[in-house]
């Protein structure tokens, strides 16, 4: 039944990424250790998804599989309907601040992936992203001359400069102090709202997940499984004292099995 008019159809978000039955085990001392068990996950185009789970549950492993750095023991990841077979410049992985190249300046780092562009276009993009992440005046500085937060912003700028459609962030703010962390979350949201990339963000911080994500995938301890997916139905900017925020946060606390009183 082909219909030429689609007025009645509600605009559904198209699926960007689909992970199907992902399992992963590592062998250690000759013994196979399961790290991920039957992970199924769907991420919509332009969505901000947080992977939340205790340390060692396999979040980084899952993100590396999704990014194509690791092959799963079984299962597959499809992005735009294509099976992921390796890393791809359309999807950039942001490591912790250690990921910037220390032998390149800020400009060199941001321009790293832009080798196919003309010089003028490259310079234009570098200037644009230096400004976007607030590193004006540091273009000629080396990473060793930057603070942790600046290095982190630099890495985000390097990722955005190649105009990827997905960003994978593995605890990108984990090494920062709590004030810088809050500021960086705000900046990431601002960039996300401006560019609408699909983002998968790994964290073990419940507040961070509820502040940032459209949906939070809560993982169990190793072997990691997806326990629950929580919809964060609060519009941005989020009031972190609102009843709904606290309710969702409490829900996740209970899901993970944490008590409220220390």
């Amino acid at each position, binding site marked *: 039944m082909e219909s030429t008019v689609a007025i009645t159809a509600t605009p559904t978000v198209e699926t960007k990424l689909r992970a199907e039955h992902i399992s992963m085990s590592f062998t250690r001392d000759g013994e196979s250790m399961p790290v991920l068990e039957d992970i199924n996950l769907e991420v919509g185009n332009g969505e901000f998804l947080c992977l939340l789970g205790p340390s060692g549950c396999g979040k980084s492993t899952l993100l590396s599989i999704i990014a194509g750095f690791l092959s799963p023991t079984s299962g597959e990841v499809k992005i735009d309907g294509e099976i992921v077979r390796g*890393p791809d410049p359309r999807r950039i992985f942001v490591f912790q601040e250690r990921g910037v*190249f220390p*032998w390149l300046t800020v400009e060199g780092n941001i321009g*790293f*992936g832009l080798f196919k562009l003309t010089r003028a276009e490259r310079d234009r993009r570098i200037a644009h992203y230096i400004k976007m992440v607030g590193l004006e005046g540091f273009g000629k500085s*080396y*990473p*060793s001359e930057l603070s942790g937060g600046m290095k982190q912003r630099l890495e985000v700028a390097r990722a955005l400069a190649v105009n990827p459609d997905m960003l994978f962030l593995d605890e990108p703010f984990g090494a920062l102090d709590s004030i810088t962390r809050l500021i960086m979350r705000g900046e990431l949201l601002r960039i996300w709202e401006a560019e609408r990339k699909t983002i998968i963000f790994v964290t073990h911080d419940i507040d961070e997940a509820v502040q940032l994500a459209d949906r939070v995938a809560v993982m169990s301890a190793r072997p990691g499984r997806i326990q629950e997916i929580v919809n964060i139905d609060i519009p941005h900017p989020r009031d972190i004292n609102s009843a709904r925020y606290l309710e969702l946060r409490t829900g996740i606390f209970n899901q993970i099995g944490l008590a409220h009183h220390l």
Partner: protein
Amino acid sequence: MPSPWGVVGGLVDLTSHGLLVKYVVASLFRVTWGFTLAAILAIPLGLTIGWYRRAEMAFNPLIQFLRPISPLAWIPIAILWFGVGDLSAIFLIFLSCFFPLLLTAINAVRNIPAVYINAGRNFGLSPGALVYRVLYPAVVPQLIVGLRITLGIAWLVVVAAEMIAVNSGLGFLIVDARNAGNRYDLVVAGMVLIGLIGLLLDIGMRSLEKVKSFRWSYSEE
């Protein structure tokens, strides 16, 4: 023992006979060739071996077996193969530089943090570009340190080699001055020259470490 003035006199003596420049050039010539040849062969080989874990496992026993043999122990074989002359001395210097440089290169590759390689692959670099834009800059600081230390070794070995395998150069000067009438002023003058040139070589290599894009690893952490 000669007085300091005697040594100065010896230096003047050497200069006036044109021997000072001649011997210094002869020694530097051998060091340059031996050292450069070793660097050209050992560094690419070491980087390749370090990159492939299997290659390292295969080569390691051989490297560890040959490495502790002093280059001076090769002197008789060098003379047998190359005769008494420049070639023997260059071969000995080559040997003395080859293994330290090989090991430096192997370790430098193995120490590259995986995040740099992964980031390079993520941005879609071809294998050649990955070598040129990630692997090479990541290993340069360690290589420079290795080259500096190795050049010092080469300078030690050239003097020893010249005492036996050739008849020019600063090492030869020392042996010859003693044999030809116990001219200890010339012996000490030769020692002073060796020390001085060693110092200059080290200063030259250190200035490489100051190049900013090479310097990153020294300022990190």
